[in-house]
């Protein structure tokens, strides 16, 4: 019904900022990282995922979306030859996340398989300065009066309030800080996939859930403003369109509507390439569209890599 991100913002008490935070943008623009040479590799990798990976003529989305994701992660991981601290990361697939919180006397819970989670040994430093955090006090959350904010949410009777990402990993796990969540919309049929707006809302809810669970593990269950805000990133894609998100949890005091709010930076609808033509389109003997990848946008890949390197570089 509603653009999903607005509803998710209210549910998680978050203020939205368009574009990526300056820390990540700095990594994108930093020439010392050699992101230009990787552009060629990124192009090959997209061609591999979309054109070359199958014995049939064209791979289906269920095949090429995960393959594209794996290839991009492979390029990012190879950077750990240059930055050894990057090897302190571990990917976890099929992670189950559960987090519960109260929002103006409504009990909300996030549960489910949250795709692929990348954990790191060291947390990401906070992206927003203290002044920005305090400035969110002034921000008023959009309400949807007269529509209840829990519209379109499933109401269930919860008998056990499950609370930690510790449910996903046991205590003593060395890579204890959630770094980035990846969501792959790889269903072949378009109606089975989330639309971009809904995908962004899903990303926000799961990033919030992970951050909240981590906060409760670190600081206990009492609602309060966090001294050290927790940052969790999120990337969602359907094989062509990418959504980037950086979420900072500033407070676990979610019952009231005022006070410090959480922050989220969203960079939405970034195309990695325009078209992937497997067979050249020929009309009346003239090649209209040659085979190959057209309209490759290196900036999208640079942002992907910057989010991967964020926190270590």
């Amino acid at each position, binding site marked *: 019904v509603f653009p999903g991100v607005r509803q998710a913002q209210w549910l998680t008490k978050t203020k939205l900022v368009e574009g990526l935070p300056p820390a990540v943008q700095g990594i994108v623009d930093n020439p010392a990282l050699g992101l230009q040479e990787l552009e060629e590799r990124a192009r*090959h990798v997209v061609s*591999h995922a979309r054109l070359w990976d199958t014995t049939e003529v064209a791979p289906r989305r269920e095949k090429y979306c995960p393959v594209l994701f*794996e290839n991009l992660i*492979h390029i990012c991981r190879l950077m*750990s*030859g240059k930055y050894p601290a990057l090897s302190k990361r571990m*990917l976890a697939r099929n992670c*189950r996340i559960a987090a519960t919180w109260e929002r103006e006397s409504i009990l909300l819970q996030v549960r489910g398989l949250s795709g692929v989670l990348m954990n790191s040994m060291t947390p990401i430093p906070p992206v927003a300065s203290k002044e920005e955090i305090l400035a969110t006090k002034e921000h008023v959350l959009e309400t949807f009066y007269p529509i209840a904010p829990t519209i379109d949410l499933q109401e269930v009777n919860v008998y056990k309030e499950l609370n930690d990402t510790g449910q*996903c990993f046991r205590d003593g*796990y060395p890579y204890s800080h959630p770094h980035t969540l990846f969501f792959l919309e790889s269903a072949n049929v378009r109606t089975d996939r989330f639309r971009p707006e809904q995908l962004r809302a899903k990303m926000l809810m799961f990033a919030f859930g992970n951050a909240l669970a981590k906060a409760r593990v670190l600081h206990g269950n009492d609602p309060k403003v966090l001294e050290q805000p927790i940052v969790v990133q999120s990337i969602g894609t359907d094989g062509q369109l990418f959504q980037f998100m950086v979420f900072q949890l500033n407070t676990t005091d979610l019952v009231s509507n005022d006070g410090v709010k959480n922050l989220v930076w969203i960079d939405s609808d970034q195309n990695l390439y325009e078209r992937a033509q497997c067979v050249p389109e020929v009309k009346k003997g003239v090649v209209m569209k040659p085979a190959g990848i057209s309209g490759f946008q290196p900036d999208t890949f640079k942002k992907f890599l910057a989010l991967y390197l964020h926190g270590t570089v």
Partner: protein
Amino acid sequence: MAALGAWRVLRPGRRWFSETVPGAPSPPGGPLYPPVVASITAKSKAAKSRRLQRFNQRVHAAATVEEKLRLYGKLQRPKYTVYPQTFALNADRWYRSFTRTVLVPGMPPRGTAAKPPVGAAGATLEAGRAPEPGAEAPAAAEAPGDAEASRDAEASGAAAGAVPYVDIGELRSLACDALLQESFYQNKKRPFLYRDQDHTPGPFLTQLVSTLAASLSGRNPLLAASSLDLSPEVNYYWHHGEEVVVHGHRKGRVDPVRFQIDDNPHLQIRVPKQLPEVVPLESDLGDVPVIDHKPSKLPLFKKQYENKVFIGSKVADPCCYGHTQFHLLPDRLKRERFIRDRLEDQIEVVYRSNGIASLFAWTAAQAMYQGFWSEADVTRPFVSQAVVTDGKYFAFFCYQLNTLALSAETVRNNPRKNICWGTDSKPLYDIVEDGNVKGFNDEVLIQLVHFLLNRPKEL
């Protein structure tokens, strides 16, 4: 009547013999008549060989590699499907005879240093490759007391052939972290019935290889340009030997025996440059077993479907050479099953047959992607590596493809044999208990690191 029939046939304007062009001068001194060759369509041995020659010429003359592959596998007939992961007894002997492979136990010696010694200080290790002999000889000639110091100086001197240290302790901790995450820390649901391998060893292998490859990419620039495939498809189709068709409308004809391998490695690394050869192309390191029975006695079954040749991605991919494959043995080939059935000696056979068949298919498909085939044999050897594991026990294989000419006509005069080096399976660790890995075996890890660091001499 015959005369009337002849008139109708010889009507002017209807030429059904190709060479008469009335009025064209015949070439002076050249042949007056066209060459007398066998027919194309007759049911005779000469006609069959002429058809075969025409087919070979068509494939030789194909403009692109894709066209060549299409023509090579155009004719579909029933063929034996060879499964690399098989429970068949002594399958590795049969597979060696199908692929003309010699099995050499142990790993090939690499350059001058087969197993570089582990430095006593801080458990650092010199990665083995083939440096210039001049640089290595003074180091080897020095007294053992200051050999280590000289090697240190050698490595830090940063000569063109100098090799940086590989910190085995750090790699061991990466491997242990991957193992612990998959088996201990992450909360997973119970494994599905007979799908134990997908629950823990599969993800562990993926994590291990991806993190090791990433951290070693600084030492090996080939890895930095590599492409990692998860669950790719590798296919190869070939002819070997002859048989008589047993029943059907083609009964009695002599046909080549056709084989097809369709393989799904768990993980594979493809690179843009070829691995160096281990031994020269014409070396003879052993004998190929000769088996007098039909392949169906193995048991092997025939099926007719598309003849595919595929290395994991199409011909247009720049990473067209193979580096390393990783195979995960499924639940039905677990060690416990063989021990329960009192077939302990077949455990190693499973690893060997998987290594030989998969690597043969991969290297041969790589060679076909470069334009070689059974009539146009390879001019340089193709080398690839594989690791076969069931999650705990690892076996390492290195394969050198010296010849593709395995069909009945070409194998008669072919002295070359393919070579496969293979080890027995060794455990990587003993047991995982309470967040600790007990009995970690460094040798297996070092061998894996050697494999990942393998690269051409000029890099």
